[in-house]
């Protein structure tokens, strides 16, 4: 069963066809969607997505991969459950309790001045009474008239209303959608205070965007820029306002400004652009640019945005597009349209660039002494140069601690033997303390490992991961590496986002993770992905990976669901 998975994995390595083994009928996925092709270990649980959705949905191709969306959350939940801590129910109860207590403190109807005075005196902190009351009203989304009565009381008492109170009242009006109040409050604030703060500007941009005076939101955006950089949320509100009132050009101009300032637009901004775009050719170019931006920055749309994209494509009159939600199978083909997706292999220049950058930033960095010493590095470089090209690099220490049972050298020996049996050239990286005989590092095992593979042992105080990356990158594009480490700390040493995304792409295609090994069983690896999970298009099809609603995906994971848009040929 596992060897079948291996055969599929090894095919790209060799390039010649291995004999097809016959798959037992019991393992055919179509009949038994519950059977997984990987060996089972204790943290087995079907992904919630499958149990929730209907049986028509196909299985995601790589449910157990370390890079699949939701794996980290699942593992964390499992470990938490195993440790016996459960805090979620308490948290949910706490939140609803707060909201109820808010409502209890606020009066039911607008009060007159003497009643407010009485309430103030009976409260616990009279000085902060008004501000606190207004904040409570904002949190509980109270009736705007009650808030107005509070303001009236304050005005009569003191002769003026403080800025803090007006600000919170403005927030209440904007969130409640009371447009006339927003306009009035703005006029009052403008006339009484010479400069407004950034929070007020954000609220006003949002509020004005919904009224007919939406052009003033642009003026406010300009004013805000003098003091502080506007956020993508501000721009999003302004764009939404522009489109709501039919001025598409201004909306696109604001979007261009947003990109120039190198801010990342929010998902609702894009959704607004897609929903309000017409189907003229110029708009199509613009929207294609939006999708290209998302591709280059490796941003994945969420489900509402994916639906808007699908709706827009299907609304194009002259080209008949068809959209469906599907997934990718293990050979890198889209299940919806049977098209092959982009391969995860890097091109030659990308590979060379990555190799150079990893050398300068990850291994040498600001100070080469941080991770190793120059002599050690030189000796390793010459070692790699004079050895034959490797097919697999093994992170010795990481792989050895995969199994909690038994001596570490035994696990390492098992993995190395497995790889050797497939005829691969193996390099094992470790540290010098592994050569010292102890219970964990048996002399006999180490001797056997050294017979089956080439080994390099670094100093005990040096880091071995950079050597792993160096060896893997310098052995050629076919070389994979075995480690459970997600290499996030080394990825963070790279200088810019593009290089980091390149590294991540290379890592997804070349990292092998040992899957739940127990001494005595066969060693299995998680399958590496064949296709690149990024927005891609040929002329006649667009494939967009997206996050499902409620899926919690960490930044080092990629989504499993795709939106497949195909143009029907006339």
């Amino acid at each position, binding site marked *: 069963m596992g060897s079948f998975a291996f055969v599929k994995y090894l095919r790209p390595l060799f390039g010649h066809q291995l004999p097809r083994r016959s798959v037992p009928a019991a393992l055919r996925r179509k009949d038994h969607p519950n059977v997984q092709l990987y060996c089972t270990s204790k943290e087995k649980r079907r992904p919630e997505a499958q149990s929730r959705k209907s049986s028509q949905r196909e299985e995601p191709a790589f449910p157990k991969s370390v890079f699949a969306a939701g794996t980290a959350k699942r593992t964390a939940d499992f470990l938490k459950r195993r440790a016996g801590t459960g805090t979620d129910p308490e948290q949910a109860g706490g939140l609803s309790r707060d909201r109820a207590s808010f409502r209890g403190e606020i009066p039911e109807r*607008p009060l*007159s*001045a003497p009643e407010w005075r009485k309430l103030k005196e009976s409260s616990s902190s009279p000085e902060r009474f008004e*501000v606190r009351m207004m904040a409570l009203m904002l949190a509980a989304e109270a009736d705007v*008239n009650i808030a*107005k*009565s509070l*303001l*009236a009381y*304050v*005005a*009569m008492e003191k*002769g*003026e*209303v403080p*800025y*803090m109170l007006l*600000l919170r009242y403005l927030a209440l009006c904007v969130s409640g959608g009371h447009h006339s109040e927003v306009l*009035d409050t703005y*006029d*009052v604030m403008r*006339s*009484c*205070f010479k*400069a*407004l*703060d*950034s*929070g*007020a500007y954000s609220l006003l941009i949002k509020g004005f965007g919904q009224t007919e005076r939406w052009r003033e939101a642009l003026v406010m955006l300009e*004013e805000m820029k*003098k*003091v*502080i*950089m506007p*956020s993508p949320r501000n721009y999003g509100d302004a764009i939404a306002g522009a489109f709501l009132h039919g001025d598409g050009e201004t909306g696109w101009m604001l979007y261009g400004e947003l990109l120039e300032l190198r801010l990342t637009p929010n998902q609702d901004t894009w959704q607004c652009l897609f929903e309000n775009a017409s189907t003229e050719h110029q708009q199509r170019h613009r929207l294609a640019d939006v999708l290209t931006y998302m591709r280059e920055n490796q941003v994945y749309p969420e489900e509402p945005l994916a639906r808007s994209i699908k709706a827009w494509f299907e609304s194009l009159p002259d080209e008949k597009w068809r959209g469906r939600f599907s997934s990718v199978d293990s050979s890198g083909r889209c299940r919806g349209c049977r098209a092959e997706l982009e391969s995860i292999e890097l091109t030659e220049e990308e590979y060379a660039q990555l190799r150079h950058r990893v050398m300068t930033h990850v291994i040498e960095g600001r*100070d080469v*002494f*941080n*991770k190793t*010493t120059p002599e050690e590095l030189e000796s390793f470089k010459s070692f790699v140069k004079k050895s034959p090209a490797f097919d697999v690099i093994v992170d010795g220490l990481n792989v050895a601690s995969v199994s909690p049972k038994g001596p570490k050298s035994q696990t390492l020996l098992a993995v190395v033997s497995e790889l050797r049996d497939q005829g691969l050239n193996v390099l094992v990286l470790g540290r010098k303390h592994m050569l010292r005989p102890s219970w964990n590092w048996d002399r006999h095992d180490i001797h056997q490992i050294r017979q089956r593979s080439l080994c390099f042992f670094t100093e*005990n*105080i040096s880091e071995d991961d950079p050597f792993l990356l160096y060896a893997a990158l310098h052995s050629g594009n076919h070389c994979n590496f075995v480690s459970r480490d997600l290499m996030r700390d080394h990825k963070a040493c790279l200088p810019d986002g593009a290089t980091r995304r390149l590294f991540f792409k290379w890592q997804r295609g070349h990292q092998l993770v040992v899957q739940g090994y127990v001494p005595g069983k066969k060693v299995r690896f998680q399958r590496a992905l064949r296709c690149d999970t990024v927005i891609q298009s040929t002329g006649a099809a667009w494939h967009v990976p997206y996050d499902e609603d409620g899926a919690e995906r960490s930044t080092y994971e990629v989504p499993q669901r795709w939106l497949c848009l195909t143009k029907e040929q006339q």
Partner: protein
Amino acid sequence: MIFLRVRVVGVLRRCCCCSPQASALVKLRNPSLPTSTYPSAVTTSRALSTSWTLRKDAPQPQDVDARHELDLDVWKSVMRSQALQEEKRKDGEDREEESTTEVEGELSPLESSRRLVETWRLAGKLVPENITDEQLETLAELTTKSSKKKFLKYLAIKEGHKKANKEKKERKRAERMAETKEDPELAEGEREEMDGEEEGEPKLKNTYLMQFWSRSMDKLLGWRVAQAMQFGQPLVYDMSYDQHMSRQEMENTVSQLLETEGWNRRAVDPFHLHFCNLQPNGAYHRELLKRYSQETWERLLITATSQRHIDIFPRESLVYLTADSPNVLRTFDYSKVYIVGALVDRSIQTGVSLANAKRLKLATARLPLDEYLHWDSGAKNLTLDQMIRILMTAKETGSWEKALEFVPKRKHTGFHQQRKKDNCLLWW
């Protein structure tokens, strides 16, 4: 009395005006009212009708709403009128002086930071009352909104502490004045003292104990440190970490250096402190001059050089103390020169001091924390003043148990032997 009569009459009149609905009139006998003085026509009991409702008290919806509408928007008119008044005042002032028209074009970074701080103060965010130009410049250099907010919060909290201290001092002084006012004898003594101070000579107390001036203590300690500088064991603080620290971390480092110098001075057997790799006009030097003034810095009994520690001491006698080292310091060696890196890493940077030691091929060591303490949670990097107290105690007593008392108690849960003793006691 008269008031009561009028009220009773009024009630009766109203009763007559109301539509006579059939109901029971409840007569209340109010025993407190004197009954004899009133004419019999006006009864002393008040007629309370439960079903007849007075027009005044009945809730009439339109009136209430209209009243509330007037009330609710009154704040707008109040604010607007106030604004008009302010404008008139400003116009009046403008006519007197030729005020330059405020063309709201590009603001300078300082101006924009100032405006940001002022508007945030109005909006109620945690922002200091007074802010200097230097602080505004650092604020302008910060790029993101959250970093600006954090910096302002730090300044506001610092200001809050100062204000609280000042208020506390004022309160204490007021209490003391109140106390002395109560006690006239003490007041006499106080007044005499105050007179004495005005004259410029402190009043001598009638005692057989000679006053020990702090000057004498300083002189004693100074001589001891001077002796240590000639004959004592050197201890090096390596100041080559300018590039690794932010402004705040640099301030923290210098605070810790101030403390180490103080602890060293007051020790029984001080070290000869060296601040090596101290670049003149570098970040460390500027900050040290700011904290110590120029004169104090020059009079300080330490050796501050821009040379490297390798050039001053022979290589075999140098040992770099760093938490990342694999070697453990078992005994305090009196012939070695220990080096401590003057680095505060709130942003965790592992291996930086070890990298320095590796580059110069020096021996390294780390304190025997795991051998003597049950570590709980916390970084094994200790602050500079904790380091010097540990080293001083180790030098004096030679026992690590006493020396490692200075490791913060929150980081560990007791010494090894202590835990064993506690367990034995429990078994009993």
